[in-house]
């Protein structure tokens, strides 16, 4: 994050000096650049506040000035948040729910899409496609109450239940993306594999699944963002607070944080950092994936 703040400040200082030195023909839109940098500040400001608040002492954090730098620099907030919210447990559960949802969504959706596309002439498969797609019309709040009851009754009021439900809510969209992509793969490719004696199972894993990789990335990114960040579903489905995910923990401990703002912000920072770091390393794929997914879906 600090590198980005650096980038913007650098940009502001060099704005005036640069254009004369640029030999290129196209004119750089400097006024546009400055406006966009100012807009970017509104994105970075809440993140800066989160980071600087997290490193303050409790005494400095309550003075109300969110924009001051931490002085002295303190790790107390992190230590207290770590112990209070049982961060390692929350992180492990969030990781489990996210990994579970991503893997289940990719595998189940790829399986179903392959079966549907290769047997499109069969009514069962064709109707299954529209049936699975219908969930795009069903928002979670509509089925939330019965789902809370039913998961409770069958002992799935835990992270495993959340994985199943989250996967099912991601399924429609993922099947839509996979089937569109599978239709563009020429069948001849598969037939040559079959002539070499590959079974359908082998063909799927050795040929089709690797070909699906770019779509799997898109599907996986959407599933990751949903499962890692969602508050509503885990908060309602998981009945044992000790098994809650990171976003829900922020809500559960809100009253216990009380005015120890350094503790609460350290807790927020630890909960959002993994996704931001993962994003910074995979920016390109995330942006391409989201664009592709949204435009096709």
């Amino acid at each position: 994050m600090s590198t980005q703040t650096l980038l913007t400040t650098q940009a502001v200082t060099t704005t005036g000096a640069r254009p004369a030195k640029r030999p290129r023909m196209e004119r750089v839109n400097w006024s546009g650049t400055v406006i966009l940098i100012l807009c970017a500040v509104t994105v970075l400001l809440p993140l800066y506040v989160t980071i600087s608040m997290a490193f303050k002492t409790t005494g400095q954090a309550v003075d109300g000035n969110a924009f001051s730098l931490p002085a002295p620099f303190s790790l107390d907030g992190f230590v207290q948040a770590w112990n209070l919210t049982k961060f390692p447990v929350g992180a492990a559960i969030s990781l489990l729910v996210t990994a579970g949802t991503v893997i289940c969504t990719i595998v189940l959706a790829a399986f179903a899409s392959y079966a549907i596309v290769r047997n499109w002439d069969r009514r069962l498969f064709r109707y299954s496609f529209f049936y699975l797609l219908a969930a795009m019309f069903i928002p979670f709040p509509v089925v939330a109450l019965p789902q809370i009851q039913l998961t409770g009754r069958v002992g799935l009021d835990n992270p495993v239940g959340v994985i199943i439900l989250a996967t099912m809510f991601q399924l429609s969209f993922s099947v839509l993306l996979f089937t569109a992509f599978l239709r563009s793969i020429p069948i001849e490719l598969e037939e040559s594999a079959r002539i070499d004696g590959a079974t359908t199972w082998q063909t799927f894993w050795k040929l089709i699944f690797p070909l699906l990789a770019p779509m799997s990335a898109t599907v996986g990114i959407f599933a990751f963002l949903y499962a890692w960040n969602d508050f509503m579903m885990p908060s309602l489905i998981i009945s044992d607070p000790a098994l809650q995910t990171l976003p829900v923990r922020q809500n559960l401990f809100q009253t216990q944080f009380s005015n120890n703002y350094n503790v609460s912000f350290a807790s927020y920072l630890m909960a959002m950092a993994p996704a931001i770091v993962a994003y910074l390393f995979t920016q390109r794929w995330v942006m391409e994936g989201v664009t592709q997914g949204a435009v096709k879906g």
Partner: protein
Amino acid sequence: MSTTTTIVTGGDTRARRSARRVEPIYYLFLLPSLILFTLAITVPGVVGIFFSFTDSIGIGEWSFVGLTNYIALFSDPAILQSYLFTFGFSIVTVIAVNVIAFLLAVGLTSRIRFKTGLRAIFVIPMVISGIIIAYVFNFLFSNSIPAAGSALGVPWLETSLLANPDLAWVAIVIVTAWQAIPGTLLIYIAGLLSVPGDVYEAADLDGASKVQQLFRITVPLVAGYVVINVILGFKGFLNAYDIIVGLTGGGPGTATRSIAMTIITGFNGGDYAYQMANATIFFVVAILISLLQLSLTRGRNAL
């Protein structure tokens, strides 16, 4: 001669199709999704609609009450308020998000410096949990801004936006927009990049100004993307929950209680069947909007 051939070939393919057995493994591929989907979504959906015609409180005995719940819903001020709030909030947010995201996308596809760096920054809010960022903004609205207001001597800044029943929704719009702009922005960037550059060159030659080019060329050419963004955004905002919990908890009073929040009260409040009727109506609303989406996007598959 020719007729016989067609009949023969026609019969041939039909025979081949029925002779072709679906390999059992394909059922193995399809069934896990079908079964889990049915158990996780269809069954709860049907159970919910069923109980909306009863007086169940979620456990214990119940009996059928016909349309009583539905009739009561339409004259319940709390329900009407939640629908008014949710729709009003969604309309304002969808307009704000699309206008800002579109302008940012125009900026980010023009000849600016630091293009990739800026784009990377603008997308960050998308990867942050809604409830957590709502807590961060909650602190800013209720502590930092009032503190700055009293320091600068600006009275109307001294009280928290979140404590004002008439204006708390503005805070929810701001945070929701902050988080929703990146996704919308990426779609608009894709749309703007799909417009061929020579169109603008031609317009330049004809002496069209940049503003004219924006409204006469860019906007019409990305109209399909606008439709997608508006509908997807609107559908998402109608489900608003996480950010509201983090900002106002539905308050002050019930001023910012969304439809999703009222439905969830059925879990603790004892009016399970009543809120299931509410959920059923919300479902119908969601379907109507999706049908609108289908009719508007049909024929735009070229995207």
